[in-house]
């Protein structure tokens, strides 16, 4: 019998707040982090993005450390991890792993051509800096698998604990809005000229965003927030920069994750989907959900609140979805107006109460990657 796996601690650092509670309050109010920016150090033209105020990061960081050597992203990651490491009381010994997930890490360091700056653009250097702040005893593990990185990290942590290599895995995911990424998405003509509108008829592309999120994945059921019961990450084997027209990889990922979870697709009460608001991605997701008969399951994309936070998105959206499940509240899919995908899907138009026992988190990304993870609410025994 494999060990049961739980998420016992969560946190996130976003433009909507520096803890989970303030993020949920903002979501319930309908606030968004996406704003128009005119910053020629980031883009030649004005653009919509969800960006965290530098001063807020520095002030919050100054409260926990006087060190000045950390990059902006490192500070955001440390801020996400600090309260949960403190609160968990888990010993950072040989059975506690640290898993960092990111797509681009400190890529902004490439602007400076010094040897030292180039070194800090390496993802293992980022992981080491964050790990050393907390004095983890195990070698940090970094996963960089495009936009599925954040949710893939949950699945990797689950597998590492099930194999009994570790008892606890602290996972952090993060990415920044950078000139590097903005220019790339813009070159792909994938940027929306208005705040992004996932699954809507008039969607024209992504709004980028930045965030960090952190969770503790554990074999210890005490203080469990949610149970992780199935996961899979299947490649489309179709195209490196566009999703499969049939949603094949996502379809297979969800199918495998449900099989491991030993539940029927119809048991799902909610889907926290990827919904980047590019025409092809959202259409592909709708096709994959349709193939699994998930047409009526309430679905949202949180990109309307946070923009696309790349490697952070999967973990950030999981943190929010856990709150959704535990408060039995479906959050609106912000930015949605008129359905704009060819298959029927049940996009959540306004916040509403609903009992959520099981939910699914999905993500898809460049390189044809997809990840699906199924979660089950903790059933508290009556005494």
């Amino acid at each position, binding site marked *: 019998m494999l060990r049961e796996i739980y998420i016992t601690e969560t946190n996130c650092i976003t433009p909507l707040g520096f803890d989970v509670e303030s993020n949920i309050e903002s979501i319930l109010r309908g606030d968004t982090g996406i704003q128009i920016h005119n910053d020629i150090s980031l883009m030649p033209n004005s653009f919509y993005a969800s960006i965290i105020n530098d001063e807020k990061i520095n002030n919050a960081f100054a409260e926990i450390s006087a060190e000045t050597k950390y990059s902006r992203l490192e500070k955001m990651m440390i801020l996400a991890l600090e309260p949960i490491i403190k609160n968990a009381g888990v010993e950072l010994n040989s059975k506690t792993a640290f898993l960092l997930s990111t*797509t681009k890490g400190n890529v902004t360091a490439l602007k400076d051509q010094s040897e030292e700056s180039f070194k800090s653009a390496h*993802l293992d250097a980022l992981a080491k800096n964050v790990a050393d702040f907390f004095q983890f005893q195990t070698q940090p593990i970094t996963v960089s*698998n495009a936009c599925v990185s954040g949710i893939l990290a949950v699945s990797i942590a689950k597998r590492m604990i099930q194999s009994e290599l570790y008892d606890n895995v602290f996972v952090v995911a993060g990415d920044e809005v950078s*000139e590097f990424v903005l220019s790339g998405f813009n*070159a*792909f003509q994938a940027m929306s000229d208005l705040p992004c509108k996932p699954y809507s008829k008039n969607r024209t592309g992504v709004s980028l965003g930045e965030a960090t999120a952190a969770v503790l994945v554990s074999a210890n059921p005490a203080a469990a927030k949610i149970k992780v019961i199935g996961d899979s990450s*299947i490649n489309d*084997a179709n195209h490196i920069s566009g999703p499969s027209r049939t949603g094949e990889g996502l379809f297979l990922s969800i199918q495998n994750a449900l099989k491991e979870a030993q539940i029927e697709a119809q048991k799902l009460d909610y889907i926290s989907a990827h919904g980047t608001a590019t025409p092809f991605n959202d259409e592909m997701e709708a096709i994959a959900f349709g193939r699994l008969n998930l047409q009526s399951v309430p679905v949202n994309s949180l990109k309307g609140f946070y923009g696309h936070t790349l490697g952070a998105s999967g973990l950030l959206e999981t943190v929010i979805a856990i709150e959704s499940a535990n408060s039995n509240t479906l959050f609106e899919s912000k930015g949605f107006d008129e359905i704009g995908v060819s298959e029927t899907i049940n996009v959540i138009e306004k916040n509403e109460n609903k009992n959520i026992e099981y939910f699914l988190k999905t993500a898809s990304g460049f*390189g044809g990657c997809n990840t699906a993870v199924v979660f089950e609410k903790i059933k508290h025994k009556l005494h």
Partner: protein
Amino acid sequence: MTQKTYIQSYIQIENNEIVLNGESVFKIEQTDFADFSKQAYRHFEIQYPKFFKMDALSKLAFLGADLLLSPIVSDEKENNIALVLANNSASLDTDVKHQESISDKGNYFPSPAVFVYTLPNICLGEISIRHQLKSENSFFIFDTFNTEFMSNYSNILLNSNKAETVLCGWVELFNNNYKAFLCTIGTNENLKITNETINTLYNK
């Protein structure tokens, strides 16, 4: 129950040479990676024009994977071969090229064909497309090849039936410095490679 797993085949690519299961199968005079990879592609008569659109990291991973997977991939059935690769430089070789295209505001030409390769897992996508592998894939970053983690993670995929075979390895490339070590791992006993582990083979 944990099943025992075995290395089925392995390949090393470095210093203008390709060594398959301990035997040198291709070697040329000192040259750069672009030329080396092109000559290797021709030598093995690989028919796959998309190869020439790939960035250097994808070419390196693709070549290693092609020589290991072509003999075992079947057109008739689904091939559940997971891809678990790692390196140190992620996609920095291409990141630097994209950065150069945006650094000079008077000469600002970011290209989607370059940008798409600024993710290390793109090489997994290239291998998946080539061999039609609808399978598990993940890309890890370490300062040096963490053979213990990589073999443990491969074993997890095999033991949890998430994969029948795992292509596992290290594909490091920056500028013209490259080193690849890839191996296939499965549950069939292999009498040719008995006492070796990823660690002993990589450090040979």
